[in-house]
């Protein structure tokens, strides 16, 4: 049972890991993108649209294309969201909180709208969006995983996107701490005026990090639909995971490698109520609160201790304007 619990916690945690890695990359540039929840919806539904169109157009799906097409359309969708956010906040210097919330409204609406109306809009004769074939391609696991007992179950039983999430998080961590571009990015997030004076192109870094961050966050939505939900889109099925991903950013104190473990922990907290015996339904609801409570506690502790390594980027949430003093 403990093996099954860990396995399910990881599966729950992967979308959060994608979301939080993307959000960390974005926040490192000083952009507090509260639109992540919306971006993840868009990433998911764009993948669904791509896969749906592909499945409708061919008799038998080609596994490589069945993976690449949704992946590509998901990237397109979430990159567009990132671009929209950066255009409004970086070029037009709009307020980041307002823009982010508008992006969430738009993105969640976009996801639910196309999820609910895609069939009608395309005059298709299928009763619901069920992308079993695509989902099967996404769920390919290593062939020998189930022969290795508990070890295989815990470490090797996931699909390629899950491993991609962990690799991306590790790469992001490496990028921040070991590369010059990562250093520049952090400088932009800490103090854009200083970075600008040092010759770093602030806008370029903000645009790039927001768009790349959005793409990664969008994969979280894609993973959720294609892997966890077996290719079935249900409206609001993704729920509050986008906000949970933002919570995870704080929990991981803006470090992608921490958020790998954090995401599994959050995933576990998310489903722990199923594993505690004799729990009434109402108490289950109380248990679903734990990730948020834990996040608040972390937030309070880091603000009380004021350690420099664990602070949010100093200019987080502020638009940069060169001529402003």
């Amino acid at each position, binding site marked *: 049972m403990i093996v099954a619990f860990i396995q399910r916690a990881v599966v729950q945690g992967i979308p959060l890991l994608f979301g939080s890695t993307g959000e960390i990359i974005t926040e490192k540039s000083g952009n507090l993108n*509260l639109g992540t929840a919306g971006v993840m919806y868009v990433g998911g539904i764009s993948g669904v649209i791509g896969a749906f169109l592909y499945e409708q157009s061919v008799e038998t799906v080609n596994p490589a294309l069945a993976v690449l097409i949704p992946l590509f359309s998901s990237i397109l969708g979430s990159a567009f969201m990132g671009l929209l956010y950066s255009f409004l906040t970086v070029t037009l210097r709009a307020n980041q909180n307002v823009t982010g919330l508008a992006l969430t409204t738009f993105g969640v609406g976009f996801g*639910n*709208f196309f999820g609910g109306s895609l069939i009608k809009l395309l005059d298709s004769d299928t009763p619901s969006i069920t992308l079993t074939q695509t989902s099967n391609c996404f769920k390919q696991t290593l062939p020998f995983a189930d022969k290795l007992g508990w070890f295989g179950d815990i470490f090797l039983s996931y699909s390629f996107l899950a491993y991609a999430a962990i690799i991306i998080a590790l790469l992001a961590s490496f990028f921040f701490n070991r590369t010059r571009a990562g250093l520049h990015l952090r400088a932009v997030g800490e103090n854009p005026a200083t970075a600008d004076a040092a010759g770093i192109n602030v806008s370029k870094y903000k645009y790039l990090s927001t768009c790349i961050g959005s793409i990664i966050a969008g994969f979280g939505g894609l993973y959720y639909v294609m892997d966890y939900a077996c290719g079935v889109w249900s409206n609001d099925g993704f729920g509050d995971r986008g*906000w949970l991903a933002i919570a995870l950013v704080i929990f991981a104190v803006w470090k992608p490698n921490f958020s790998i473990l954090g995401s599994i922990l959050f995933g576990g907290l998310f489903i722990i109520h199923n594993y505690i015996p004799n729990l009434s339904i109402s108490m289950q609801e*109380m248990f*679903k609160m734990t990730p*948020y*409570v834990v996040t608040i506690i972390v*937030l309070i502790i880091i603000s009380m201790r004021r350690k420099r390594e664990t602070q949010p980027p100093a200019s987080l949430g502020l638009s940069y304007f060169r001529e402003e003093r």
Partner: protein
Amino acid sequence: MSIKEKQIHEPLFHIAKRDALPFWLSWLIRILSVVAALIACAAVTVVLTGENPINVYATMIDGAIGTERRIWSLFQNIAMLLCVSLAVTPAFKMKFWNIGAEGQVLVGGLATAACMILFGDKLSPVILYPLMIVTSILAGAIWGFIPAFFKAKWNTNETLFTLMMNYIAIQIVSFFTYKWSVPKGSGQIGVINASTQAGWLPNIGGSPYLINILIVAVLTIGMYIYLKYNKHGYEISVVGESENTARYVGINVKKVIMRTMLLSGAICGIAGLLLVSGTDHTITRNTAAGRGFTAIMVSWLAKFNPIYMVLTSFLIVFLQKGAIEISTIYGLNDSFSEIITGIIIFFIIGSEFFVNYTVKFRESKKGANK
């Protein structure tokens, strides 16, 4: 040979902050942006439904104000959105990003629902109503005060804190909806005190919505006066403009932050009261219906002015109602209204740039090179 002069590269254009525009011009820009947004929305609708634009607008207007019932419902929704927007405004003016209005409304509503369920048939209305009012205001105020306390004391990031508080509130409401559900285990409370109507706000003039609208109207005027003609309002704007200035002139910043958030939370509590006791007569996880987030945009679009907020909340609710009508008629998903809201807000957010900044193009090079 002389050293080649260092080429001075001047960008094609640069952006500068502009002086305050005349009142009419800044509003002209905003109105133009709304018009542009409406055209964009119509374009999206036309693409999705294949209907001609005139019909699209006609359907939207019909959906918003087509019947007397719809008009009432429109004004009720405007009132509720406006109420939450009023609540978040003083905090925003102080640059305290209270995005926890959703949770503050919910706990206020929960307190009201609790009074109605637990004491509905035990206490006389003379005690019940004041009790509901006091508990809902207190609940909202406490929910707002917690993040403010930590912000004032340790400068804890309030955006993220208030955001998390929303989900805690949602789960608490979830907990109680299961605990009090009728029938047991269904996870829904249903209409509270349907037979006795204990704790329901009274109908005035034959409409169940009028009392909410009146209360919010009073709140709007009150908030306008509070922000504009009261010492507290002045302190809020000074803290919002510059915390250091506020400290130099002897304003107790921490006290202002905590006091303002108490007020902000309290008004959210009232919104919860009005929603539960005035219209819904029940409580669910969705009672606040995203108003806490929409309110932020309403307040910001209105430049934190309570009177303009009437207009911005009207605009947003009107479009939402219209978009819902379109989605029902064409058999689309009603999340269409969220897409429309998003588009409108993007346009208005974008237009602020042209109010505050100006783009200066490079002047012609002639004469500059000797």
